[in-house]
């Protein structure tokens, strides 16, 4: 039992519950509890991450369990940045429950001794491996922020067009703000994804002499990359609604990239 991770989970669940309550009842005090709880969870989570690193003797980013937990951690980092930059409270209402969910999943998933990942890390240019995975997990977190911002955009845009407003409408940040968050996060996500793909290609060419394995994960990553490349290229013509639609669709591809390949097999299957 990893007590540090458990502490983090309890704090995250508490943060998620309070974030949702603060959103529903607009209570400043409840919101503070959520933020403080999140900070506490983040501290425990970071400690758990470091202690795993020391205990296992390697960068803990190989199995599904570790990937889920690390993804949750990067989401908290992303939320911290967005909160600091835009003071958007509504984002936490969607993000904190997801963080709690990911950490729960990480605790439930069986940690398997992962021989292949170990071999890769020990092989030629093995030091690139943790960089490759770290870039990509941060990219996933950035794309989730794009998704959340896009969903908020589309929801509000729809209500503005229909001219009927739900209670949710008044609690969401303005269209310009969510559009700004979405495009900033998309830029960051795209950069990280590019770096992740490049490092992956370097690693693969060093170890197997091939940079492309026709693996589902690679295909979906490339599709995501192309989609965002198109979006960034047309960012002026696609401002607003269209880019929000891309943000939602792109996140579908990201989920496939992250989980879908597990079901389809291929080079990237570990554990």
């Amino acid at each position, binding site marked *: 039992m990893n007590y540090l991770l458990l502490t983090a989970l309890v704090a995250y669940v508490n943060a998620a519950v309070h974030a949702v309550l603060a959103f529903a*009842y*607009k*209570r*400043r005090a409840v919101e503070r509890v959520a933020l403080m709880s999140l900070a506490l969870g983040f501290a425990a989570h970071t400690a758990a991450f470091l202690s795993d690193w020391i205990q296992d003797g390697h960068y803990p980013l190989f199995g599904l369990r570790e990937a889920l937990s690390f993804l949750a951690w990067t989401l908290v980092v992303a939320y911290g940045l967005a909160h600091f930059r835009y003071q958007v409270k509504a984002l936490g209402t969607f993000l904190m429950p997801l963080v709690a969910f990911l950490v729960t999943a990480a605790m439930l998933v069986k940690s398997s001794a992962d021989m292949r990942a170990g071999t890769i890390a020990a092989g030629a240019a093995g030091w690139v491996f943790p960089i490759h995975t770290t870039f990509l997990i941060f990219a996933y977190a950035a794309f989730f922020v794009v998704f959340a911002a896009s969903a908020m955009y589309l929801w*509000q845009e729809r209500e*503005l*067009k229909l*001219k*009927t*407003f739900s*209670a949710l*409408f*008044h609690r969401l*940040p*303005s*269209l*310009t*703000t969510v559009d700004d968050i979405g495009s900033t996060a998309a830029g960051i996500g795209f950069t990280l994804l590019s770096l992740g793909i490049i490092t992956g290609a370097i690693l693969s060419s060093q170890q197997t002499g091939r940079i492309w394995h026709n693996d589902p994960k690679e295909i979906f990553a490339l599709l995501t990359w192309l989609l965002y490349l198109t979006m960034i290229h047309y960012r*002026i*013509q*696609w*401002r*607003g*609604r*269209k880019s929000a639609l891309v943000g939602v669709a792109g996140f579908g591809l990201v989920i496939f990239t992250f989980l879908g390949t597990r079901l389809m097999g291929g080079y990237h299957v570990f554990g």
Partner: protein
Amino acid sequence: MSIILVGLNHKTAPVEVRERLAFTDEACAETLQTLVDGELLSEGLIVSTCNRVEVLATTRSLNGDEGAARISSFLSEMRHLPDNFFLGHLYTHADEEAVRHVFRVASSLDSMVVGEPQVLGQVRRAYSNAVTAGTAGRVLHRLVHHALHVAKRVRSETGIGANAVSISFTAVELGRKIFGSLKGTTVLVIGAGEMAELAAQHLSSAGASRILVTNRTIETAEQLAQKIKGTALDFSSLPAHLAEADIIICSTAANEYVVTEELAREALSARQQRPAFFIDISVPRNVDPAVGELDNLFVFDVDDLEAVVASNIREREREAERAELIVESEVMQFQQALRSLDLGPTVAALRQKLEEIAQAELKRQRSRLGDLTPEQERAVEALLMSTVNKISHPIINRLRHSHDTGEEETLKAWRDTFGLEE
């Protein structure tokens, strides 16, 4: 002691009655000084706004009826109004009811437009008038401070004042929803008209940095531009300037669409698809409804804005229900605080009375004791005081108990026994 409130408001009295009874600040002070005689009424305060005139007072007697009657007859005398002119419009609340009413008024739950923020300032002013007149005492200080606290809680914990309930503020709010801050936005007013002017003014005080005005007759445009500190444009240059504007207010008497779909489409691509917000307050409409179907353009006509206002009012009413719960819990708290507030002087008076008796007896019998050392002297005194305390202690406990459980009769009996004032 009893708290009473006598008054009328927009729900119970028509404006003809309200205006005859309204008080200016000076009249308030004068009236209060005459009304609060220190006998029947011990404290007083008058809230007078265009929607309500209310006299809040405390009486020495446990029953507020006499005080209430005094206030209403006083009002009719002082304004030379026949009783039947306004008695039917008057309401009277006593104690808990009065406290609840004051809290509801301060929290803007009793206002014509529920949640409007002005009433809090009016209550504050009424209080400061009473303080100046010297008619606010222990109970009213507490009551008003508590009411301000309740109002603050209601405002921050419910959305009662959150959404705009007028067309021009709704326009500002929707603008904020689209652009975030209105700082740096450009507003274009097409046509003239009171509502357009008002909306432009609200937008400008909400931060809009540039205002453009255009009209078929350039003179009218210039006049309006001068009034709202904008720039007048020639009407023919409208297509060229449409792209610059983030918020467009349309209010002309034209019978056809001034902003056609084609015009809007061109402007949209010229402004690189950045969103724009059209407020069409002209009838017949001046902005082609098809414009609203283009991405990133939002068109609201008069009916749309009115529908938003109506739904905001409904939202406020829902929030008001939550506010009532807050008021209810605060009324309970206040009543509890009031009871202990009320007992303090009684306890002090009882102690003082017993101590006085002991001191007087000691003085009377002192000569019989002969010469005493200072130590002995102190011992005698200590003996007397501890006897007084031992006797008063169970009585005070009993008083507190009766007080907490609201047994007014028992309290009164104790006060009578020792000849204490309330």
